[in-house]
């Protein structure tokens, strides 16, 4: 959940609406890199095994390689170093497979997608960010900059933003029919924070322990319900009735 203090990228659109995109921190980036690195690793493992299946004398073949063969080998190694990242970012709208898995994306400083230049620069700088080992330079740079950018990002003018999966169904789920209790006189309208609180509880209720579920539900009913006497008792009779009342309350139906 983004709070005011967490790093973000502000974008001013021509529609005069300010966008605030959450920035991916060092943890997301390391995980995404791990995914990509293991993909590349397994690619080379598979390539090696296929190669050894086809050719028995591996060392002999490497020694007998002509200049062209050696050049091709170098190009292959280079591809995993640089082409993989750059091509993936250019053709997948700023995402490598690892970034896609983690839901983060490379964008320019103005929020637009990266082009060939930016991607090329930030991936060329991977070599420096990796120094002296295991991305030490890049990590220090990410810790020191406000928007968690490594040296390559600084040079290319890019950063990584996070994409959250947000479920809107919780707003539109209708309460179970028939279970809605009678409307309680003059109830006030809930603030958006209270609506969020109630909906967050409803989303998690099925996974809670029964007693915790009842206790939290009761506290929420007391806070938002404005009920008293036998109305309150009727609502608190069963968890189903309680939650259906809360859902109806959040939808401002009672």
């Amino acid at each position, binding site marked *: 959940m*983004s709070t005011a203090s967490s790093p973000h990228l502000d*974008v001013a*659109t*021509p*529609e*005069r*609406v*300010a*966008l*605030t*995109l959450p920035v991916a921190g060092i943890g997301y980036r390391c995980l995404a890199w791990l995914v990509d690195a293991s993909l590349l690793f397994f690619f080379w493992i598979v390539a090696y095994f296929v190669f050894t299946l086809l050719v028995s004398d591996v060392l002999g073949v*490497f*020694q007998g*390689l*002509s*200049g*062209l063969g*050696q*050049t091709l080998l*170098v190009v292959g190694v*280079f591809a995993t170093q*640089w082409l993989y990242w750059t091509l993936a970012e250019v053709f997948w*709208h700023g995402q490598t497979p690892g970034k896609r898995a983690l839901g983060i994306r490379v*964008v320019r400083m103005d*929020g*637009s*997608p990266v*082009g*060939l*230049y930016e991607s*090329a*620069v930030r991936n*060329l*700088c991977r*070599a*420096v960010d990796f120094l002296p080992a295991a991305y030490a330079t890049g990590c220090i740079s990410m810790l020191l900059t406000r928007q968690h950018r490594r*040296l*390559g990002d*600084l*040079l*290319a*003018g890019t950063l990584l*933003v996070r*994409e*959250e999966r*947000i479920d*809107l169904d*919780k*707003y*539109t789920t209708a309460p179970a029919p028939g279970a809605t209790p009678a409307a309680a006189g003059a109830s006030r*309208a*809930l603030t*958006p*924070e209270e*609506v*969020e609180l109630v*909906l967050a509880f409803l989303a998690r209720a099925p996974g809670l322990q029964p007693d915790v579920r009842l206790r939290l539900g009761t506290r929420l009913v007391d806070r938002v319900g404005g009920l008293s006497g036998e109305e309150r008792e009727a609502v608190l009779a069963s968890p189903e009735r309680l939650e259906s009342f809360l859902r109806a309350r*959040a*939808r*401002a139906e009672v």
Partner: protein
Amino acid sequence: MALPLPAFVAKRRADWDALQALLGRQRSGALKLEELRTLDTLYRRAAADLAHTQTFYPGTDAHRFLNQLCGQAYAAIYQPPRERWPAVRDFFRRDFPRTLRREKGFVGASAALFCLGLLLGALVVLWEPRGAELLVPAGVRQYVAHGRMWTDDILSVAPPNSVASGIATNNLTVTILTFAMGMLFGLGTLYMLVNNGVHIGAVGAHCIREGMARGFFDFISAHGPVELSIIVIAGGAGLMVGQALIDPGELPRGQALALRGREAVKLVLGCAPFLAFIGVVEGYVSPGSMFPTWVKAGLGLSLGALFWGYLLRAGRAEADGAAVPADSAS
């Protein structure tokens, strides 16, 4: 009074879902022209909804959702023009050589540093033979002591860690590192240039001392001119980056870096195809005695002349008339 949040979401959600579906199709490139108009309309509506949620429901999940949706739509609608083949052709015909000519001060400085290293390495070995023990790799010294070029073996039976193949694999790494280490305030580039110069100078001088000058020039002449030029150009790009960091001028350091980095990386990207080509020459032509020395020297000199002729002439006719972009700091 604003609607309750769930009612607002329920009312507007159809448009948001439609926008999301259209964005998915846009990503996969299956969008039709009419749909593009719908996308535009839906984006404007979503932006208005975002403004509404910013006012009435800040900090809720609906707000975050709209923020993200508008961010994606914004990126899709306001994306910069794609780089396609004509752009690539244009880059090599005009943009790359022009950028190089504009930044020739940096390339010159880089060449000077490299030559300084070359001189240092050569002088140390020529004056003080024991310096070779420090500067020339042990493998090379062994070969030279036996009166052979270490590169003769590439096309026959190569020892597993043949030095020459090491150099060949290093070309890319050296070029990229020379550029990218400019991020360390230019010091990394400085080090790479001088260090490489010292090494090549020392190996050359060592060969000359041991009476192997012919073998050395035989190996280096075919690919040397172009390859060293490329390293010098990459060094120039690295120095540009370092200069932007040390002296950003009137811009904030980050912006100056992004601006100059764009120019600098043009130089490196422009060199890439030439580097690949010269790698083939180094692997095929340079080692062994398949080609006589004069053929190699002729090839190397003419390749070098072609390369620099291209860099200094291409796109010149239009370049002189056109105004130099205002963002070039030097």
